[in-house]
């Protein structure tokens, strides 16, 4: 299973973090700090996997963001790369040509999207169409005021 | 980057080129500013070199300076291009009406780092050395190092080094001081070649009080490495240097102190020495109210100075100056603590302890640890105050804060070594906090204490057995500590500890892989079998008492460091010769 997913900027800022299983705050902070250190600046030609503590890190850089997952040792690393790509494509479709700024200012939307793709560290839906449909239905339910205030990019 | 720029923005370069060709000077200026802006961003604008050169021949000084800036940038990396400008430089260097221009030309030419430049530069440089304007001469003086760096041989051949010596007699102090800087740098390359006589000393001392603050540093540093031979000259030099302790520039103060401390070695009159020492203290203390960076350098240097001349801070209350402020950066705090330990004496120890205990409550763990160990080091240093220090340590241990306990154990071990059998009563407090000892060093220290004070610790056998539970997994240092402690306990308690010693010796000889540990095990075993009384004499013998002397720098090293106060040597505490030799050896990165 996937234990956590982090989006880290080139400068080491955490843009999104989701822990699918409980970690203490101390553990979380250590993971975030270590991951930034391990991943940033790694040449894209090198392997996208690293051993870390008693799990594996699978990561990939998309534009200015590093997508980093920690997965259990029994996971299929290549499949995890595909899952991350799945997420990236969905972000892209939802925001329309997504960039780091979209995720910074609409981090909540990115979390909502993630909730429809992965639950508890397991893939729950592989159809992009189905996911986007459910998301737009939920967006309709949201308080208009909330989004008007915060002016979601469409 | 550069390829990218040329390909996609060829148009931009062309545009700039057109602007450079314009007859209107403001337009040219604008173009050059843009070029320099690109240069600043790291873009390659060298394709414009020839076009820029064409603008060089202009009566407009601002434009000219812009061209110079451009050339300076490429002078080092692309000397072949830069040499194209050489004719204009030569012309500018002969520009009679404006010394600024001449200076600029000589200065910039020296930056072109190819040997062939020397052929072009030697004549204008010679002229410049004799120029009527001091601005040109002071620039030429520095330019000689540049030529020396390009080719030392040619520089000697052309007698530039000798001209430097002549410049020491120049009427302008700034010229003299720059010549001194050059001389010193060349000395650094080829060894000392200039002997100072009374005449040159006098000239330097005259220049010293007339030149800029920076020039004073050059002259003072020069004096620190070139000692006059005659004691009378030394005394007169001292007299002229002392006033510089009042200079507002911290580097002048430090360099002046350096000269004084070195020269003092050659004075025999104790009163004179005392009077100089008295003058040294206040300016050094004042450095503590500067920027943190300057404070840091100053503290490091003060630490050396007071090792050399402990009587400088005689008043006794100087220690207060080094108390840590809440907002001092960590690197300053740590160094201040070092000085505090050096300065603390029986008069100030109470304040010191109050102060350091305060630090031990702070949040910054490295600082707190250092504060704890400072208390211990103070105990070791001051026999009569040891009681108070130990009491302070006990208070800290009783807080049960993990890192306080850990650091205390390590330092109390040394206190016990310094004062055998004086503080056994405190051991109980440490025995109550064994759980906090997470690291090998602390455990080894604790085990040593148990072994050493076995007769005072009723459950010492049990303690050693529990430490030995994971014997195989323990760090080697802990294994050794257990072995030695077990032997000591056995020698003291005999029968009571028989089972334990058998177990431990078995662990150390039969089960251990480490030959060193096994060696030790066998040596003890054979001793015990052979002649237990002999073992008792060897193992339990009182060890020479450690002292704080070991914290002092070796006197010969200290003397060589004193000659380099203010420089990197004084920060890294590496002996000058050693650092130079171990150029290759210093591959690994080390922090200062």
């Amino acid at each position: 299973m996937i234990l956590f997913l982090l989006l880290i900027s080139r400068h080491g800022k955490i843009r999104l973090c989701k822990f699918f299983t409980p970690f203490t705050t101390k553990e979380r902070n250590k993971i975030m700090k270590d991951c930034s250190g391990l991943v940033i600046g790694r040449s894209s030609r090198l392997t996208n996997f690293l051993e870390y503590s008693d799990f594996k890190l699978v990561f990939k850089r998309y534009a200015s963001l590093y997508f980093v997952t920690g997965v259990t040792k029994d996971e299929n690393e290549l499949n995890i790369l595909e899952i991350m790509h799945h997420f990236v494509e969905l972000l892209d479709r939802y925001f329309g040509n997504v960039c780091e700024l979209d995720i910074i200012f609409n981090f909540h939307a990115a979390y909502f999207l993630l909730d429809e793709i992965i639950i508890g560290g397991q893939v729950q839906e592989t159809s992009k169409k189905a996911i986007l449909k459910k998301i737009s239905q939920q967006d309709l339910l949201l308080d208009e005021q909330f989004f008007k205030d915060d002016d979601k990019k469409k | 980057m550069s390829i990218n720029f040329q390909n996609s923005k060829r148009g931009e370069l062309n545009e700039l080129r057109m602007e450079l060709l314009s007859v209107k000077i403001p337009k040219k200026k604008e173009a050059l500013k843009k070029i320099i802006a690109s240069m600043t961003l790291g873009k390659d604008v060298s394709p414009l070199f020839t076009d820029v050169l064409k603008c060089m021949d202009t009566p407009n000084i601002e434009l000219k300076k812009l061209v110079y800036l451009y050339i300076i940038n490429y002078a080092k990396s692309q000397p072949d291009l830069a040499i194209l400008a050489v004719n204009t430089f030569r012309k500018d260097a002969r520009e009679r009406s404006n010394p600024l221009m001449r200076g600029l030309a000589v200065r910039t030419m020296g930056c072109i780092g190819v040997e062939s430049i020397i052929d072009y530069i030697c004549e204008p440089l010679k002229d410049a050395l004799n120029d009527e304007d001091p601005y040109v001469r002071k620039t030429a003086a520095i330019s000689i190092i540049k030529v020396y760096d390009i080719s030392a041989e040619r520089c000697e051949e052309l007698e530039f080094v000798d001209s430097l010596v002549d410049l020491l007699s120049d009427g302008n102090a700034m010229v003299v001081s720059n010549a001194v800087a050059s001389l010193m740098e060349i000395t650094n390359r080829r060894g000392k070649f200039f002997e100072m006589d009374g005449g040159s000393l006098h000239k330097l001392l005259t220049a010293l009080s007339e030149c800029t603050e920076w020039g004073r540093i050059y002259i003072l540093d020069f004096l620190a490495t070139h000692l006059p031979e005659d004691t009378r000259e030394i005394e007169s030099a001292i007299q002229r240097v002392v006033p510089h302790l009042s200079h507002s520039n911290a580097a002048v103060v430090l360099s002046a102190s350096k000269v004084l401390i070195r020269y003092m070695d050659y004075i025999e009159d104790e009163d004179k020495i005392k009077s100089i020492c008295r003058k040294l203290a206040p300016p050094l203390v004042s450095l503590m109210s500067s920027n943190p960076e300057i404070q840091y350098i100053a503290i490091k240097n003060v630490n050396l100075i007071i090792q050399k001349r402990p009587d400088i801070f005689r008043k006794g209350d100087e220690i207060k100056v080094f108390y840590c402020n809440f907002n001092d950066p960590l690197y300053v705090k740590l160094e201040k603590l070092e000085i505090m330990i050096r300065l603390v004496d029986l008069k100030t120890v109470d304040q010191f302890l109050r102060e350091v205990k305060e630090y031990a409550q702070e949040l910054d763990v490295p600082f707190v640890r250092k504060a704890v160990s400072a208390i211990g080091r103070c105990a070791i240093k001051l026999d009569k105050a040891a009681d108070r220090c130990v009491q302070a340590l006990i208070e800290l241990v009783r807080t049960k804060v993990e890192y306080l306990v850990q650091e205390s154990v390590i330092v109390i071990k040394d206190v016990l070594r310094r004062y055998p059998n004086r503080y056994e009563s405190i051991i109980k407090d440490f025995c109550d906090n064994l759980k906090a000892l997470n690291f090998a060093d602390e455990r080894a220290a604790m085990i040593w204490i148990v072994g050493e004070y076995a007769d005072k610790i009723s459950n010492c056998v049990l303690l050693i057995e529990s430490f030995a539970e994971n014997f195989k997994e323990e760090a080697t240092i802990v294994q050794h500590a257990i072995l030695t402690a077990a032997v000591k306990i056995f020698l003291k308690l005999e029968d009571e500890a028989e089972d334990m010693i058998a177990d431990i010796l078995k662990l150390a000889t039969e089960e251990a892989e480490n030959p060193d540990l096994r060696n030790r095990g066998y040596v003890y075993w054979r001793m015990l079998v052979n002649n237990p009384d002999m073992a008792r004499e060897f193992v339990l013998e009182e060890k020479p008492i450690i002292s704080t002397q070991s914290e002092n720098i070796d006197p010969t090293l200290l003397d060589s460091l004193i000659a380099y106060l203010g420089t990197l040597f004084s920060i890294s505490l590496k002996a000058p010769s050693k650092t130079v030799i171990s150029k290759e050896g210093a591959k690994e990165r080390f922090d200062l």
Partner: protein
Amino acid sequence: MSLGCSCIYFLDYRGKVLLFRDYRGDISSSEINKFQRRLLELEDSLSKPVFKLKDITHCWVGKNNLYIVALCKGQPNVMMVFYFLHKLIKVFEDYFTEFNEESLKDNFVITYELLDEMMDHGYPQLTETTVLKEFIKSEAFRTAGKEEKLTDIMVSSAVSNIVSWRPEGIKHKKNEIFLDAVEELNMLCSSTGNVLSSEILGSVQCNSMLSGMPDLKLGLNDKQAFEIKGKTSRGKLIELEDIKFHQCVRLAQFDRDRTISFIPPDGKFELMTYRLNTRVKPLIWVECTIESHTKSKIEYMVKAKAQFKSRSIANNVEIYVPVPCDVDSPNFKTNTGTVEYLPEEDCMHWSIKQFAGRKEYLMRASFGFPSVEQTDREKFKNAIRVKYEIPYFTVSGIQVRYLKIVDKSGYKGLPWVRYITKNGQYQIRMS
């Protein structure tokens, strides 16, 4: 031994190079990347200002979101390097009024010119703004003025003179000089009111607007000066512990008979600094008691007392008292001044515009806590900081007895003198 440095870099807060000047060309341009990496690895407070990587020494200073880094080879005089870096900042401040990323970018041409003139081959040269301004004009001045001819700009006569800080031919309509004697009181007190350490850092700031090449003599109530000259004084004499002078002051003469004589630079400069170690009691004493401290509430009683003569008044008194990091619902009661909660500094800030001597004021504060406790709530007992200014008053009692101004043109210059005392590092530990 080489004293100087090889190159100087200006980096933004992320470590990106804004501009640099390579003086010696003996250090590869990739070296600065190592500095950047170290910057990212360590927080400022952890990184020492000077460190060595292989054979290259890095010296750095941080200021206004910028880093100024000097790289050196061999054995630089690091004290000189740091003093130069600070001087550099000072000159840029004089030129651009502010020293920051924008001003540097806006003035990069002048910045290069200054870097070229202030240092040659790693050796500091001319660093006095007044002198530099003679031949490096600021941008604003340039555009306003007419186009310059080669002959228009000359090296400052100061370079050729023995007086390297003052050009000839300065003219002022009114010949005046202003002296400010400013004293900062550094003080560290324990919570019980014991003064742990205290010192006075004094300085005499000048603003000279005198014509020609005036020669000045300053007379202070310096005890040693009176002793040397065998005079007696009616007023109080003080013992100045360590005096440092601007380079214009004739040090040898001072050393001989404690006469402060000098030809001043034009405009503002710091003539001298001095230090006194006399024991003084805190001018503003703050006592802070935490009256109750529970899981849901904390209450403070803060008492401030002015311990100086009643005819003096302290202006802009600001008292900062630390509070736990997660308080809410601040509530303050006081009859004097205003109080606010400064969450960004985890303290409350009590400011009193005017605080007369011998007066005492009281303030009570209470805060609530959220029900879920933040882990480091209890770690708030830092020092209380106090800021203030007291005009017409110096702690040391320093006095300017006279200022003689002699110029060969014979004009009569007017000296003006002011006194002020301020806080320096002024901290009172909290119990």
